């Protein structure tokens, strides 16, 4: 057997889950879709004393589109990517979900699991950062709401959530009227983790950009791209603004080297992908992009 020994609980409610977290604290690990945690268990990179399996907590699985979009943390990626409500509110989400792993991975993987695991090459932390999403964290002591940037900070493979907190919900504010998106990533093969990627949401009043929210992934952590955003707001849509944003994005990006690519190469990718994502966004405007 590959994983090390652990005690196993399968609670059926949020209340039961947070009580278990309060009891076991840092010795416990929450098992969501398992598409990242189970490989880590199999490699014994993770050896939790106690595994709390929340796959039976039905109240964590929902998509609600009354007002802000609210998504339960155990919503599977396939359901997220195929939801009409999600596509209408934020079409960047299904565009990004289509790039996550493969069908078998998306059938099990969850939105909350992706955020809590916080792989720096994962799509959803960056996308939800660009959408100004917030998450709800529950513990036995109560509940708090945390913005995506506050959740991630500069962490990788962990978040600012405490050991006794359970990520229960993702809330995404409605898109501004006339906003449009671009999503670009570069991976060696479809379904592989991206070397780098950019999520861009812009709003124009016809020709001038009034709002810009950009986030990148594939560096040391998911991050907003404030220099790129500043280069866009107030500028006319077009090559000059997009080129300035690309350069700004590369400057903002916390690049990193590994066997798949050097830091310089990744920064170059961020520059190019930012320009392409903005071109896509310019081409996407109108047409139901929220």
């Amino acid at each position: 057997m590959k994983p090390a020994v652990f005690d196993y609980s399968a609670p059926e409610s949020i209340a039961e889950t947070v009580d278990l977290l309060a009891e076991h604290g840092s010795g416990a690990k929450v098992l969501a879709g398992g598409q990242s945690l189970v490989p880590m268990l199999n490699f014994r990179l993770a050896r939790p004393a106690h595994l709390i399996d929340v796959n039976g907590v039905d109240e964590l699985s929902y998509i609600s589109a009354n007002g802000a979009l609210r998504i339960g943390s155990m919503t599977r990626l396939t359901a997220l990517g195929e939801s009409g409500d999600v596509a209408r509110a934020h079409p960047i989400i299904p565009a990004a979900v289509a790039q996550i792993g493969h069908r078998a991975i998306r059938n099990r993987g969850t939105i909350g699991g992706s955020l809590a695991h916080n792989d720096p090459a994962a799509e959803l932390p960056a996308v939800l950062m660009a959408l100004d999403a917030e998450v709800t964290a529950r513990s036995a002591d109560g509940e708090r709401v945390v913005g995506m940037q506050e959740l991630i900070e500069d962490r990788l493979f962990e978040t600012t959530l405490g050991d006794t907190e359970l990520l229960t919900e993702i809330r995404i504010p409605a898109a501004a009227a006339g906003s449009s998106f671009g999503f670009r990533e570069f991976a060696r093969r479809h379904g592989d983790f991206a070397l780098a990627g950019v999520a861009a949401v812009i709003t124009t009043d016809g020709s001038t950009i009034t709002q810009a929210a950009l986030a990148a992934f594939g560096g040391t952590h998911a991050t907003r791209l404030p220099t790129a955003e500043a280069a866009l707001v107030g500028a006319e849509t077009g090559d000059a603004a997009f080129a300035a944003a690309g350069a700004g994005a590369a400057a903002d990006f916390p690049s990193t080297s590994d066997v798949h690519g050097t830091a310089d190469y990744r920064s170059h990718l961020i520059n190019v992908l930012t320009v392409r994502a903005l071109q896509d966004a310019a081409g996407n405007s109108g047409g139901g992009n929220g």
Partner: protein
Amino acid sequence: MAETMSVVLNVNGAGRSVSVEPRKTLADAIREDLGLTGTHLGCEHGVCGACTVLMDGEVVRSCLMLAVQAGGAEITTIEGIGAGDDLHPMQRAFSEYHGLQCGFCTPGMILAGIDVVSRNPDPSPQEIREEMGGNICRCTGYQKIVESVQAAAAIMSTEGGSA
């Protein structure tokens, strides 16, 4: 040895109770406790796709699930797809179009192929390549696998044949 838990695994239409440690993956339970060795284990970390099974009709990686999580679900392995002279159209197409050489990846390929065609009855070669990118083959170079899935899709559209 750690404590075991009892779980009923419904595999290929038959329910069997097994007693497993919680850390045992579904793939290991299928192979070791149920003796269904058609489900193969390649990488055991969710990359190669050899361990693909259907759970309630959807493809999943059985190496990335615990056996104790599968109680109450309907699991289909390659043994439930067809055997001997009673082969599924996907299996016949893989045989006819040489969609395998050593055969190690084939159970996962067959199940992934059935899943692709069930959602897209007439997939293009490009769609097959993208959809089946999560299943690795080290022999064929994939060309024959793509041809096999396309051929199976054509057979299934006339004969039917879901999982």
